[in-house]
């Protein structure tokens, strides 16, 4: 890092632009974290693909129990979906404020994101509690087992995303936008948007297609 700043003095730039281009390619390995994190997300994608496959195979095995059409309240799911979608855009706003080096604005948007995520988890837990209360717990049928496995895995990811978010807010409050914190915030950004992508699959494949006759 210090090599870069030492070399990119105004004199060096105007003297030889190609030299500076070389340098900015040189500190690339620093960003290996983002590629590595992307690879982690792709492996996570495979985990979800397996759970989706299980749901796809077992999703119509009701064992004479309730079906998706009996259980799912689509208005609740629409509310949940909009909460998660809104949290995606507010995280995006936090990243934009980070690019402008505004710590306070970033933290405010992160708090909003966390609250929206917590609202999502709250509604999901309410839905689960309601289902279990109605006797439609994971042990009722293969359909409900695979449903709880898939949706709860996504919910767990969001929960850990919120914990990560809180830890990062503490980090940013304490240390500001140091390079490590920027990198962490970008990793969490990818994680958070990735969870929204998985949720698209969940609400389409599980809920919307689940209520079809």
């Amino acid at each position: 890092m210090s090599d870069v700043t030492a070399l990119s003095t105004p004199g060096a730039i105007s003297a030889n632009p190609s030299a500076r281009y070389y340098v900015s390619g040189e500190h690339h390995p620093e960003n290996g974290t983002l590629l590595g994190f992307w690879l982690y997300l792709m492996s996570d994608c495979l985990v979800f693909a397996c759970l989706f496959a299980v749901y796809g195979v077992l999703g119509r095995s009701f064992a004479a129990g309730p079906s998706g059409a009996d259980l799912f309240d689509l208005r609740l799911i629409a509310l949940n979906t909009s909460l998660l979608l809104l949290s995606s855009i507010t995280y995006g706003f936090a990243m934009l404020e980070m690019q402008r080096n505004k710590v306070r604005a970033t933290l405010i948007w992160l708090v909003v994101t966390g609250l929206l995520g917590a609202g999502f988890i709250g509604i999901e837990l309410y839905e689960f509690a309601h289902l279990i209360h109605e006797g439609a717990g994971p042990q009722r049928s293969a359909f409900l087992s695979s449903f709880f496995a898939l949706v709860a895995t996504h919910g767990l990811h969001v929960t850990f995303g919120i914990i990560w978010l809180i830890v990062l807010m503490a980090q940013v409050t304490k240390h500001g936008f140091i390079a490590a914190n920027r990198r962490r915030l970008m990793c969490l950004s990818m994680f958070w948007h990735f969870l929204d992508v998985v949720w698209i699959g969940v609400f389409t494949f599980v809920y919307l297609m689940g209520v079809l006759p």
Partner: protein
Amino acid sequence: MSAHTDTPVHGADHGAHDDGHGDGAPHATFKGYMTGFVLSVILTAIPFWVVMGNVFDKSSTTAMVVLGFAVVQIVVHMIYFLHMDAKAEHGWSMLALIFTIVVVVITLSGSLWVMYHMNHNMMPGMMHDMHKVP
């Protein structure tokens, strides 16, 4: 953004001081996020409307429409929120993504295909039918 003549040489860089988010950083813009958000809202609202309003008579038509919108929305998220393009990380992100999509498609379609046929061939009523039909 400086207006020096040497900036276009490394157009991927924002300025001289941004060592924290160098070439690996996505170029997030307010416009990009808003475009993605508006598209996502539309692409979410339509499938919900299609299902909740019973727009199509056949469930298979509804399922296909809903799945189509989901695929489009995933692509929108990838481009506008996850900032995917062929050049990110010198193409390695895209390569990993393509590999993952191939594996996911094989997993999903393979599982559904094999298990559907297995279910079909192990229907309890099937032996019964075979006695009747000929």
